[in-house]
């Protein structure tokens, strides 16, 4: 397959929780393995996915669609329980152990595969300034840019997604 005809995809990554970290990383790595040129633009909470040591969390709060497989059924957690201290950690641990048990890749592994596949990773400089993150807090080898860089990439991409 010729490089010149390769399709391309860009994704704006705006969320940084454990569950929302999956869609952009799965799509990016899969597309890259199918020959697409992929760009990920991380902004706002998406920056959490670029931290050197990933510490992503998950909360059942406010997610009416979240049901965990437990005791042969799917259990939902009422918001009032989700608000209690420690529940988010529990939900995060539970999710991570489900992921491991079912042979699903960890976010770390997917991110490593994305870097290896030469997915272009851009961190939104404005978000860094806004939340007072430093470039040293994030992984090496990424670009720092703004919206105009993203827009230019998007005009040339076959697929543009907002996650």
């Amino acid at each position, binding site marked *: *397959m010729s490089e010149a005809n390769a399709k391309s995809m860009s994704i704006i990554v705006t969320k940084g929780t454990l569950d929302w970290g999956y869609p952009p990383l*799965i799509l990016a*790595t*899969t597309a890259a*393995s*199918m*020959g697409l040129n992929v760009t990920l633009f991380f902004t706002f909470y998406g920056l959490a996915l670029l931290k050197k040591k990933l510490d992503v969390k998950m909360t059942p709060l406010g997610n009416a669609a979240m049901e965990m497989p437990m005791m042969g059924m799917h259990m939902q957690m009422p918001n009032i329980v989700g608000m209690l201290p420690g529940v988010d950690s529990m939900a995060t641990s539970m999710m991570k152990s489900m992921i491991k048990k*079912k*042979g*699903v*890749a960890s976010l770390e592994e997917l991110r490593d*595969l994305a870097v290896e596949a030469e997915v272009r990773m851009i961190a939104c400089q404005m978000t860094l300034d806004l939340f007072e993150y430093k470039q040293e807090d994030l992984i090496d080898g990424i670009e720092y840019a703004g919206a105009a860089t993203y827009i230019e990439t998007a005009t040339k991409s076959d697929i543009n997604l907002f996650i």
Partner: protein
Amino acid sequence: MSEKTVLDVKGLNCPLPILRAKKAIKDLAAGAILEVQATDPGSVKDFDAFCRQTGNSLLGQQEAGGVYTFQIQKN
């Protein structure tokens, strides 16, 4: 007769079967065959799409006891 390399991705879920296959194919010579063994039912359509998109040939596909086997020839 092209030699066959076997890739065992049983127990791994999407997108790992595809990602691992892509890595394995990269190291093969043109014409070589990669045999992938997976348990992920989603991989059936995925390998079809993968081959179509990357220009590799899906020579065959079998299922037995929950294990899906694909023969992919690198072009």
